[in-house]
């Protein structure tokens, strides 16, 4: 049984009115229509989804963007239901990675139901799918409590889950450190890229740093990053940007 969760930014928005009608018709044609839940101010997305799962929903499809996914990620992973999405509007990086086109074209991808299992990362207990970015990075990283890594100059840190990870279903993340290195007589700065596979790491910084998990900002001096024991089953398109 399918449950479709409409984010509040697409409801009553003329820009999406026609597209929503097309989507609803196409889902009915494909025989995968289901219960529609509408997000609104003061309505808790997790509670809404949990109620639907209790009533027998096995596939949760969000209509919205990366922010919508963030609202239901915890409950989807914990309940082990299948996750799908119909991307609408800007900020749809996850849909791109999963190979799901925007709007009504996503309905056929849902109907084809190509399922993949992916790992989910956590940073300080908060789940993430695509990865983490630390743009201004001058901190110490401890990998697997075994060895420490320091950039010797200003660097950027990216932790990838889907793209770049050796196999997103295998349970490894990938850390990419891009450090500034000066070369030649003119001391031109180039970015050198270090790549380390990992299952857990800790970032420690003397001063608070900004970390972006799936695009959402977090600030602090310590970030514990690891992999969730529970994996997530997602519907993907054939144009997904990761290998399994």
């Amino acid at each position, binding site marked *: 049984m399918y449950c479709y969760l409409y984010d509040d930014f697409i409801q009553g928005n003329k820009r999406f009115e026609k597209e929503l009608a097309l989507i609803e018709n196409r889902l009915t044609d494909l025989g995968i229509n289901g219960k529609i839940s509408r997000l609104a101010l003061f309505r808790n997305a997790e509670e809404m989804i949990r109620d639907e799962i209790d009533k027998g929903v096995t596939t949760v499809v969000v209509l919205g963007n990366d922010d919508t996914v963030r609202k239901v990620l915890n409950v989807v992973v914990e309940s082990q239901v299948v996750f799908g999405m119909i991307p609408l509007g800007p900020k749809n990086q996850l849909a791109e990675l999963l190979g799901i086109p925007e709007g009504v074209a996503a309905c056929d991808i849902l109907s084809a139901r190509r399922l993949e299992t992916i790992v989910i990362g956590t940073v300080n207990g908060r789940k993430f799918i695509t990865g983490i970015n630390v743009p201004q990075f001058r901190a110490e990283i401890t990998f697997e409590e075994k060895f*420490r890594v320091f950039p010797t100059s200003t660097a950027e840190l990216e932790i990838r889950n889907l793209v770049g990870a050796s196999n997103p279903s295998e349970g490894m993340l990938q850390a990419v450190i891009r450090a500034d290195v000066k070369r030649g007589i003119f001391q031109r700065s180039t970015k050198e890229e270090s*790549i380390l596979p990992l299952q857990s790491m800790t970032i420690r910084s003397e001063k608070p740093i900004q970390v972006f998990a799936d695009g959402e900002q977090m600030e602090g001096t310590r970030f*514990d990053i690891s*992999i969730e024991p529970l994996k997530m089953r997602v519907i993907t398109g054939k144009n997904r940007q990761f290998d399994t």
Partner: protein
Amino acid sequence: MFGKQENSMAHQHAGSETIIAQGVKVEGDFKSNGDITIDGELNGSLQTSAALHVGESAVIHAEVSAKQSVIAGVIVGNLQIEDGLQLLSTSQVTGDIVTSHLSIAEGAVVNGRISMGKKE
């Protein structure tokens, strides 16, 4: 999140390549099952069951163990290379070497004992 035992296994399960580029320093016990390329600095110990490539800009102070290795940088520490070791002309090794096959280019510097054949 994970128990200690799982943590200790983490990098041993990594089959993909690890790259330590210039501008990055590693301290501690580094273990992998995948290929490793080092162009930065490393202090501690380094172990892989696959290939190790040490670039010209690399400076390593560590006990090193690998299946096969090509070295162009500086290593201070003992090397145990199972299958074959290639020391390029820019390499400088201060430490004992144990390997089954060895190739040393002109200009390479080795200060230490060299034992050929697999370690008992």
